[in-house]
């Protein structure tokens, strides 16, 4: 068994982030897009946690960043759903192509 190093964590972080980024661009379903944005958030947070653990030293900056980003991400999602609710009332669909009036 190899030891789990910094790079393994970083790889997971990168993988999740790229998954989220690609998904947010490709997905046709609005809910899926929102989930993909959450994936990006997770990827970033994995990175921060890893770095805070391995190279952060005594400061907790990385963990603080995670805390804030999680909170703000949650609010962002709430706002997104709130606005989406208004749009959904009109269109009754979650396909992104139905919403391209502009």
């Amino acid at each position: 068994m190899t030891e789990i190093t910094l790079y393994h964590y970083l790889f997971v972080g990168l993988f999740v982030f790229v998954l989220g980024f690609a998904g947010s661009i490709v997905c046709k379903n609005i809910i899926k897009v929102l989930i993909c944005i959450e994936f990006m958030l997770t990827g970033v947070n994995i990175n921060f946690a890893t770095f805070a653990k391995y190279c952060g030293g005594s400061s907790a900056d990385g963990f603080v960043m995670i805390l804030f980003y999680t909170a703000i991400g949650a609010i962002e999602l709430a706002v997104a759903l709130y606005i989406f609710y208004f749009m959904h009332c009109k269109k009754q669909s979650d396909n992104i192509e139905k919403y391209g009036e502009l």
Partner: protein
Amino acid sequence: MINDFFNILLPQGCLTIFILLQLLIGMFASPKFHKYARFISLIGISLSILLLSTVQTEPQYFAFKNSIMSDSYTQLFHFVILLCGFFITLLTKKLTNTFKQSSYTFNALLLTAILGALSIVSANDFLTLFISIELMAFPTYFLIASAKGYHSKEAAFKYLITSAVSTGVFLFGVSYLYGITSSLNFTEIYEVLSEGEPTLIYSFASVMIVFGLISKLSIYPFANWVIDVYKGTETSVLAFLSTIPKLAMFGILCRLLVFPLSLGLELPFIIAIISLITAIWANTYAIREKDAKVILACSTSANMSYVLLVSALVSVYNLSTVIFYLLCYVVMNIAVFAFLNITEYEDIGFNVANFKGLFHKNHSLGLAYTISVIGLAGFPITSGFVAKIYLFSAIVNSGLVFIPFLLALLILMVVALFYYLKLILPMFEKATVDTKVLKALYSQKFVLIITTAITVLIGAYPEKIIELCRFVAYNI
């Protein structure tokens, strides 16, 4: 801690108090007082402008464990942002009239966005920067969505998705930078990095950070969405959207490019190429368009790409040109949107063909609008002309490599002239019976006339302002 607050944070503190005040009054005030919400905002912004004079700037002042800083550079940006905020608040009257109940909330949101913009400029670590960006972004979503109808919601949603994705990209870059230097503070990062050779991961991180930040500047990868956002947004909010976030983002981007991100050699070229692509895309896209809002969205993209190109080629001289260009640009842009705000509520719409003959019925308003658009196109006696020459001289100073870029930009200016002409020429056509005499509010007229006057005055005598910009750039 308390000392720090009184030394540099009084303007922001004042704004915060007024935000709370707005929300409190909004809860208890009877509906007939809702039209006075604007005045509270105006008083708050004016007070903050006054309080700017109490801020310590000499020498650079770092506060709250180096997370916030203040110098003459931030002070200038704060002043301009607050001034724009003042004008924009004046413009929102017609919009707030449409929703009766919640105008206190609307004004509180606007103030919050301005507060966010102020904090962005004075941030000195990535955590503060990130929170400030979100502080500016959240109210912006609601401001965009506040107008009636479905379109504003769609615009807000699109803006939200773009912002959320770009925030992710930005923070991903930050996380690597944090990994290399184990710090989030700009000054510390710069100190750690300048000791060693820049690594590949550093370049990757800095590109990610820049990409994350430029989404708010409507630069190419995100520019397509910007046009949709512009289409669905009410004009007074658009006046906000096209000035204050831009100012704030450039305020921090220039600082980042001067300090923590200045060590990689390939970043300027990458940014230059993105800017060029944006300039080409935006200018050619606008040729076919007939909607004034879309044309202005493209114009914003194009202008921002010129500024971005110069700010990537870091030097003190270039920085001063960037600041000067931004100053001139926001003033002209507010003037143009003030005019569109007048026409929007006269049911003229945004198709440029509907502006037919307006000049002959509304001499002074039409003239002010024409001068501002001509200024955006870069013609003399307006500040746009001086800004253009000054900005392009910076590209020449940056070396022969960038001369082809400059040539491309200059030729694109001709294309740009074509669509700027489309914005004003119908006004000079023959007036018909349907041509309206515009009924503008005093506040709208005030904003239009004052901003145009500033444009012309800076154009006639730019030296004092340029001197100020150079002073600020030397002190960053």
